[in-house]
C-alpha cells in the first residue's frame, strides 16, 4: 500500500481499535509502516517514539495521537445490559441505536434509559449486549464501518487517524532541518496525556502537534470554527493559554510557502492542565496544526482528503524550513 493513498489508509486505520490505554494494535500497525532506518521504542505509557537520527538530541518533536475515544464497560442493571464509562470526550450518542464493539468481539447497541434525567450524561444510557458476555472493564469503541466518497471519508476515529497519517507521511517524506523526533502519543484523549511524559524524556526545544479540530461550519452554528474542505488550521489557543506566537508565525510562514492561508482555530477556553506539553520540564514552546473534522469523537466523523494532503505538505515544509523557529 502506498503511503500517499490517504483514502485507503484512512479506511484501514479506522477499522483498527485503539481506545486510550489499549493502543497496542495501532502501535503494531505503525511499527510495521515506519521508514527504513528509523529507530522506534515504546515508553512506559505506551507512546511510540520514533527517531530518524538516534544519535542526535532532537530539537523538535512532532506529536500525533495514537488513541481514539472509547469506553470501558460497567456493571449493568441486569443480564444482557452494560453501562459505559467514556474514555475521553465521547459525545452522547443522540438518537438511540449507535453501536459499540468491545475488545472481546461482543457488540452492543446504545439505548436511552427510560426516565433518565436530561443531565444524566452517559449514566442515562444502557448498552444492550444481548446474550454476549461483556465483563466489567472491557474496553470498547464505536462500531462504524468507514466509507469514502467524493473526497470525504466517514467513519469512527477519523480525526485522530488523519492527524496520525499526516505525521507519518512527514516522517517518511520530510528531510527536517533540525533533528526531530516523532511521538505517536498514547492516552492523548484523556487527562493523562501521553505526549507530555514522552517529551520530558526527549527534552526537545519545541513541539509541533498534529491534531483534529472540531469543525465549526455547520449551518446555523453560533461559534464558527474551521470548515471541512477549506484546508488545515492553526490552533491559536491550547490548554487555556495562547499557543507560542513564534511557532504560530513559523506555521503561517510555512503555509505561505506551500501557497495557502491556514484557517484559524480558537478552541473554547478551559482550565490550564499541568499535564500538558507547554509545562514539560522548564517549558516547551508548542503549536498545533489542526485538521477540521465534523462530529469529532462521535461514531461517524468526516474529514476531507484535500485537507490531509495539504496538511501533509504543510508539515513537511515546516520541518524542512531553514532557521530556528524560536530565534
Amino acid at each position, binding site marked *: 500500500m502506498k503511503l500517499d493513498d490517504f483514502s485507503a489508509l484512512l479506511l484501514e486505520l479506522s477499522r483498527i481499535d485503539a481506545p*486510550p*490505554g*489499549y493502543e*497496542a494494535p495501532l*502501535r503494531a500497525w505503525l511499527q510495521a509502516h515506519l521508514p527504513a532506518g528509523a529507530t522506534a521504542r*515504546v*515508553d*512506559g*505509557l*505506551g*507512546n511510540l517514539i520514533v527517531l530518524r537520527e538516534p544519535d542526535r538530541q532532537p530539537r523538535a518533536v512532532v506529536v500525533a495521537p495514537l488513541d481514539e475515544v472509547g469506553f*470501558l464497560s*460497567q*456493571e449493568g*442493571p441486569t443480564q444482557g445490559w452494560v*453501562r459505559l*464509562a467514556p*474514555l475521553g470526550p465521547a459525545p452522547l450518542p443522540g438518537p438511540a441505536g449507535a453501536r459499540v464493539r468491545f475488545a472481546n468481539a461482543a457488540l452492543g447497541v446504545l439505548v436511552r434509559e427510560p426516565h433518565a434525567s436530561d443531565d444524566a450524561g452517559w*449514566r442515562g444510557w444502557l448498552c444492550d449486549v444481548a446474550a454476549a458476555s461483556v465483563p*466489567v*472493564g472491557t474496553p470498547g469503541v464505536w462500531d462504524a464501518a468507514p466509507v469514502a466518497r467524493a473526497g470525504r471519508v466517514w467513519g469512527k476515529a477519523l480525526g485522530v487517524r488523519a492527524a496520525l497519517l499526516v505525521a507519518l507521511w512527514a516522517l517518511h517524506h520530510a528531510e527536517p532541518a533540525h533533528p526531530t523526533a516523532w511521538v505517536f502519543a*498514547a*492516552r492523548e484523549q*484523556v*487527562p*493523562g*496525556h*501521553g505526549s*507530555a*511524559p*514522552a517529551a*520530558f*524524556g526527549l527534552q526537545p526545544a519545541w513541539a509541533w502537534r498534529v491534531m483534529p479540530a472540531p469543525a465549526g461550519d455547520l449551518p446555523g452554528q453560533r461559534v464558527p470554527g474551521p470548515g471541512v474542505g477549506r484546508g488545515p488550521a492553526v490552533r491559536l489557543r491550547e490548554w487555556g493559554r495562547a499557543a507560542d506566537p513564534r511557532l504560530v508565525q513559523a506555521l503561517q510562514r510555512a503555509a505561505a510557502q506551500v501557497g495557502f492561508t491556514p484557517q484559524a482555530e480558537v478552541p473554547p477556553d478551559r482550565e490550564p492542565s499541568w*499535564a500538558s506539553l507547554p509545562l514539560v520540564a522548564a517549558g516547551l514552546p508548542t503549536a498545533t496544526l489542526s485538521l477540521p473534522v465534523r462530529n469529532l469523537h462521535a461514531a461517524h466523523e468526516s474529514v476531507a482528503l484535500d485537507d490531509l494532503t495539504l496538511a501533509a505538505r504543510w508539515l513537511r515544509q515546516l520541518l524542512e524550513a531553514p532557521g530556528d523557529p524560536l530565534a
Partner: protein
Amino acid sequence: MPATLPPFPPRAVRLLRALTEAVAVSGAEGPARRLVRRALRDFADRITTDSMGNLFVHRPAEAHRSQRPLRVMLAAHLDEVGFMLTQRTGPGLYRFRPVGGLQPATALGQKVWVGPERRVGVIGSAPVHLLKGGARLPAWDDLRIDFGPHDPPATPGQYAAFATPFRREGDTIFAKALDDRVGVVTLVELVRHAPPHLDLWAVFTVQEEVGLRGARIAAHALQPDLAIALDCTPARDFVGPDGRPYPFPNTRLGRGPALYLADRRTISDPRLVRHFRTVAERYGLPYQLRQAGGGSTDAGAMHIQAAGIPSLSVSVPARGLHSPVAAMRYADWRAAFHWLWAALQALTPAVLEQTP
C-alpha cells in the same frame, strides 16, 4: 506453589485507630506523619521528609542480586479532608472553609477536633426556618465552628477534622479518615514485610485531597520503574428508597479490595492490571474491579511524571467517605494487604517487558 501469606497483625488495627483519631488535614499532616515515622523507625534503612511533607521510607533490595532491582514506589496519602478556620466572627465563633471535597450538609451539627491538640468545637447553623431565601441546605458561609464564649481564642489558619472516635463492630470498622489512613497502615505493613528483591520506596504523601500534589512531587523525585497507589474508594452499594439497588455501585463492601482500570485521571497500566489479576487468582484472593468513571488517586499524578511511570491503584472500599464517619470491612482490608504483598513478591522486570 504460591508462598504462604503473612498474618495480618492486630497491631495494624491499633495503628489505624490512632491514625483515624489524629487530625491531619491536607497541608497539616504532621500528626499522621509522626505516627507513621514511629511505627517504621526500626524497619527502614532511611526515613526522610521532603519540602512538602511527603514521608519517604526506603527498603533497598538485598545487595547480592546481580540484576538491577525494580524501583517500586508505593504511595498512600496521609491527609484527610477537613476544615480551616478563616475568621473570628464573635466570642468563640469562627468562620471556616472546607479543605478537600466536602459538602456543607455533611458538616452540619457535627463535633470537630481543632488542631493537633484536638480542641473540641461544634459546627452549628442557623435553624432551617431562618436560612436565607428559604434554602434548606446551608452554604459554608452559614456555618460556624463554636468553641463556646469562654474558650481561649483559636487562630485563623488552624485545621479541624470531624471528631469521630474509631469503632470496630465485628468485621466492620467505623471511623473518619479511612480515606486514606487504611492505605497508610497497609503500606506500613508492606514496609515491614518488604520483598527482598525490590528497591522499595514507600511514600506517605501529602495534599492528595486538594489535587494529588504531594505524589506529583514525590514521583518526579524518585522516577520509579512503576508506582502503585494504595487508597480507599467509595462503595455505593446502597439500596435506594424504592427498594432497588443503587444503579451505579462503584464498589461493594465485602467483595474484596478494588482494582482500578480507569478513573477521571488515570488509565491503569494494563500490564500491572494483568499481574495483579493473575496473582489474585493464583492465591484465591477476593477482589473486585472498581467501576470506571470519576474520582482519582495519587496514581493520577504519578503516572505522568518524568518520562511516564506505569501506575495502578488498589483501594479498600468504604461507605460514607468524605463525611464524619465511614464504614469498611476488615476482611476487605486484610485481603488488600495480602494481595499487595503477593503481587510485590511476584513482581519482576518481565512484567514490564510486555507491550503496554
